[in-house]
């Protein structure tokens, strides 16, 4: 299945887009999605945390590790997933 991941800041600039797609199987965990990002989007490596300890935003709240993600469009109950790293407000 395909999972869309929103990206921002330096990651979005580097990828020249505001979202990337990763190929995942079933309902992956946060850890698995981070591992898939590492494998399938090496250009984002500088912005990717280690899968073991890193976090993603799932439905706009931070989540890590074994948290399951439901792929698919929001309208069909899918989760909104975003890579939030290297923030730099203030």
């Amino acid at each position, binding site marked *: 299945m395909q999972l869309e991941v929103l990206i*921002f800041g330096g990651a979005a600039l580097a990828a020249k887009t505001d979202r990337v797609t990763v190929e995942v199987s079933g309902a992956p965990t946060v850890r698995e999605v981070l591992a898939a990002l590492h494998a399938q989007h090496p250009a984002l490596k500088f912005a990717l945390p280690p899968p073991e300890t890193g976090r993603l935003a799932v439905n706009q709240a931070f989540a890590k590790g074994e948290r399951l993600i439901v792929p698919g469009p929001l309208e069909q109950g899918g989760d909104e997933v*975003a890579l939030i790293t*290297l923030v*730099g*407000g*203030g």
Partner: protein
Amino acid sequence: MNLPAGTQHAPRVLAAIVDGSLTREREAMSLSQHGWTPVRDTSGSAAPSTPGVVGAAIRFEGIVRRKELQTEPHEEGAKCEQDLLALEYQTYDPMAERGLMALSREVAERHGLIALSALHSRGRVHVGEVSFVLIVESAHRAEALAAMADFIDRLKQDVPIWKFPVWR
């Protein structure tokens, strides 16, 4: 937790993302939209507070500098060679505002503050303009100073706001 006198009540907390630079006008508008009226015109801060309870009020302003430090690895090549015109702040909504609010509450409670308000810009803020305002009120100065340092460190880790340089 052993809170200082006068802070037995939960701290009053306000956090908001504001479009454009934080002019005095936008700041006042944002405060009043959230039902806050400034205690005194000097600090321009909190909701009505018992007079005589606040002993220290600190106002921090983050201002866009002409020479922005390059922190994004992909911009290595452009390192400090050009002058900025502005910064463009991108926020992940509504997580950014919610994150700002959660951080505000957490820091205000941890340090036993009387009030904390945090405002951050979204969109373009020109050189010399204010992009971030943090106002902290507490019984004594120690907790106000500690809360301020704590808040700013955490802001850069946990609140999804990014800045992009706009070169001159």
